[in-house]
């Protein structure tokens, strides 16, 4: 099987090379032979997917059948590993995850080439670029990080999978993240292809709109799953630690979000063409930077794979991509002249422009923090660590301004918005957010007490402002359609959403972000207590009292475990039991916390079994984490909103309207019509 796997990967490389070379030859010819060559390139590209699939299947087969003659299988599995984790072993190590990456890329390439009728010429060029990226990854898995390396002697059992990865979410978190990372190759390929071909109009944007949104959605899900995994498994009580590899997933997410916004300006007004092209180039390069961070070991992280020379491959690939993009851009830049210019700083266009500035500013901030240890090592000779305090100080103000823009953006019209219109439409959201700010102080939030509470108070106020703006947009539009079609206002809102799914789906995404930041704002009010708990000992944290009723031990083929059985009381009222656990996985004697969490909308009671103290009493750490559930609800709303935005618009119902009717109906128009 390893031999078959190796052959499949070599064959896939040959097919990708064939697709690349014949694709270029076809692009240079305009005759019948060129068409035939193009078809060969397309089919070779599609066949490469089956060849890489063969390699991935061979490795999975080896994992399922405990073939420890394969070094990768020996290092990442063992006999007692459950089947889902054996399958997940494909992306649990360096070589396997690169093979998985190559397989996903081949999969995206397959779909792209299969759907070539969308635009044969542009798809053919995008296919060449995808083949080029495929060649890079296939060269790596064939010659630098081959997953089918053979052991000198065949061990009887494997070393096992990292215990932190033996968690259900970890089975789906990496594939989601990789689908997001790899997916940006497609809009990148179309953008570069369109620029090479000097393609007229915004067709590449129309073709890649759904690709980009789906990719962005995968990346969002991947980041959210990773956060939830960190919260549930790492046992430190938080879901985001500003770890370099966590940061790496934010780079393309932030620039991709900026792209999704700014691309609307090109579609609607023919503006920002250079910006958009570079934004997607940068987003693709940032996915490679993210991979470089994880693979090379240049920055220490709990997520990173071991130090390896593979980083050099990625550096060189980045250089090649940058050179190609720059060359094509400078050669074809006259093709990217804007059709319109901005007329006012108070307009939808400028709000997108500032939104892009802030998103990229946030991305740059994280990039600075992540690479500062390397920079300081070059300049000063030692690493200066940059951790959460830095990111919190620099990122929060940028995030707050972004939230403010999210709140007012929908109220701004294209081209120019009068101050009167802003005041008229912003009145209700402003009053509601002011009431929220006062209400929070009445409820006990003390913005003057410390900086964390101040930022939290501001964030909650902004979240209300965003929600109120979005609600007013839905109500205003719903009323217009209610008047036109009859029925209820909710029916009107439904039709409104169906007719412009992208705009209203986008608003739902914004609402999801507002809910998510409510959850983040809760961090300022977290509590924690830690103490050894002998039998019947009590631990008080906030309004909760924990009483140790018993401790248990267990021994399974995979791990030994200790757990405490704790009675939980809130304000003296019995609520149930929690059983935090500490597992020690056998092959490596590595500990892993199984957190006991009681989650409500208001707060999580998050209890960690830390081990035993010198006297043998279990040490329990209890956190009261405020509003965490809102983070996960917010993510679900973001997913829902993106799903809505992906649905095609319903057909418009046309009805003749006189100018007089239009003028009289103008006061009922949703603000910022035209998004």
């Amino acid at each position, binding site marked *: 099987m390893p031999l078959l796997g190796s052959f499949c990967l070599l064959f896939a490389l040959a097919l990708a090379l064939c697709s690349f070379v014949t694709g270029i030859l076809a692009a240079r010819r305009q005759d019948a032979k060129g068409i035939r060559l193009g078809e060969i390139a397309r089919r070779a590209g599609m066949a490469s997917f089956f060849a890489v699939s063969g390699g991935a299947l061979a490795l999975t087969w080896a994992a399922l059948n405990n073939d420890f003659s394969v070094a990768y299988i020996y290092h990442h599995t063992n006999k007692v590993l459950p089947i889902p984790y054996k399958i997940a072993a494909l992306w649990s190590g360096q070589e396997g995850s690169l093979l998985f990456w190559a397989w996903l890329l081949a999969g995206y390439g397959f779909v792209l080439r299969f759907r070539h009728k969308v635009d044969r010429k542009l798809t053919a060029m995008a296919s060449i670029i995808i083949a080029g990226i495929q060649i890079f990854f296939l060269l790596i898995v064939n010659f630098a990080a081959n997953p089918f390396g053979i052991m000198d002697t065949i061990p009887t059992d494997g070393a096992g999978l990292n215990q932190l990865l033996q968690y259900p979410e970890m089975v789906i978190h990496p594939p989601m993240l990789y689908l997001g990372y790899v997916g940006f190759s497609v809009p990148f390929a179309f953008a570069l292809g369109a620029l090479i071909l000097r393609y007229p109009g915004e067709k590449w944007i129309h073709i890649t709109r759904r690709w980009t949104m789906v990719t962005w959605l995968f990346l969002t899900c991947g980041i959210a799953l990773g956060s939830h995994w960190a919260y549930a498994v790492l046992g430190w009580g938080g879901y985001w630690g500003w770890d370099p590899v966590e940061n790496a997933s934010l780079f393309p997410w932030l620039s991709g979000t900026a792209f999704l916004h700014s691309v609307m300006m090109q579609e609607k007004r023919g503006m920002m063409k250079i910006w958009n092209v570079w934004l997607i180039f940068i987003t693709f390069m940032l996915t490679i930077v993210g991979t470089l961070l994880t693979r090379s070991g240049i920055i220490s992280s709990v997520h990173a794979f071991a130090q390896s020379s593979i980083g050099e491959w990625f550096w060189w690939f980045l250089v090649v991509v940058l050179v190609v993009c720059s060359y094509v851009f400078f050669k074809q830049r006259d093709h990217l002249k804007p059709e319109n210019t901005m007329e006012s700083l108070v307009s939808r266009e400028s709000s997108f422009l500032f939104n892009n500035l802030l998103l990229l500013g946030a991305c740059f901030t994280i990039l600075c923090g992540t690479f500062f240890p390397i920079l300081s090592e070059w300049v000063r000779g030692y690493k200066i660590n940059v951790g959460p*305090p830095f990111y919190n100080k620099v990122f929060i103000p940028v995030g707050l301004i972004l939230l403010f823009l999210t709140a007012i953006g929908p109220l701004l019209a294209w081209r120019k918005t009068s101050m009167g219109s802003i005041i008229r439409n912003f009145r209700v959201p402003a009053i509601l957010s002011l009431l929220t700010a006062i209400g929070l102080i009445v409820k006990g939030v003390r913005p003057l007490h410390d900086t964390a509470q101040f930022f939290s108070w501001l964030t909650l106020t902004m979240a209300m402002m965003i929600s109120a703006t979005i609600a007013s947009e839905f109500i205003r539009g719903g009323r217009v359609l209610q008047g036109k079609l009859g029925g209820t206002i909710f029916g009107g809102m439904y039709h409104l959403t169906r007719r412009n799914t992208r705009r209203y789906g986008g608003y739902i995404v914004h609402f999801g972000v507002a809910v998510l930041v409510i959850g983040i704002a809760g961090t300022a009010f977290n509590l924690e207590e830690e103490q050894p708990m002998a039998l019947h000992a009590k631990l008080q944290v906030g309004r909760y009292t924990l009483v140790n009723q018993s401790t248990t031990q267990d021994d399974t083929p995979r791990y030994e475990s200790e757990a405490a059985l704790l009675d939980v009381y809130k304000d003296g009222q019995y609520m149930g039991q929690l059983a935090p656990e500490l597992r020690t996985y056998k092959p490596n004697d590595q500990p892993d916390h199984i957190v006991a969490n009681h989650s409500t909308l208001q707060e999580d009671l998050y209890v960690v079994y830390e081990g035993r103290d010198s006297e043998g009493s279990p040490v329990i750490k209890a956190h009261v984490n405020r509003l965490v559930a809102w983070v996960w609800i917010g993510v679900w709303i973001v997913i829902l909103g993106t799903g809505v935005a992906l649905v095609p618009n319903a057909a418009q119902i046309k009805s003749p309207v006189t100018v007089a009717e239009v003028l009289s109906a103008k006061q009922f128009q949703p603000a910022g019509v035209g998004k």
Partner: protein
Amino acid sequence: MMKKIAQVTVMAVALILLTGADNSDAARYQKVGSKIMCTCSCGQMLLQCNHVGCPNSGPMVRQLQANIQKFSSDEDVLKWFRDNWGVTAVVEPASHGFELLAWLMPPGALALGFGVIVLVVRNWKRRLVAVGMAGVPIDPQIEAFRSQARRETEI
């Protein structure tokens, strides 16, 4: 008017931030402790390290408590940790020397970007005026047709 509102807002925010400072030892302990990392290679912040039997976090926490009493300046406490536990123990760059660069780069880039946007928009507006597209009186009938087009294509 807008300038005055902006000035008042900036002053109010500065006032809130300055008056919000809590200098009690407990607050300083939390504040300084949140800038120090446990050096046992667990990758966690000192006050969050939950390794039972961790060889470093216990002594480091005790030293933090002692140094909060000993030094009146937070910067001196952090310097003590840098000197005794290595530069990687502190995860917040200092606000002077080379490390200041880490603090300056993000706002610098944002300010630069903001400036570029304002310049570009001004340039565009000037060009519009130059070619006579701006300042043209709005024809109410054309505006009404525009509104109709927007209404029918957007909602």
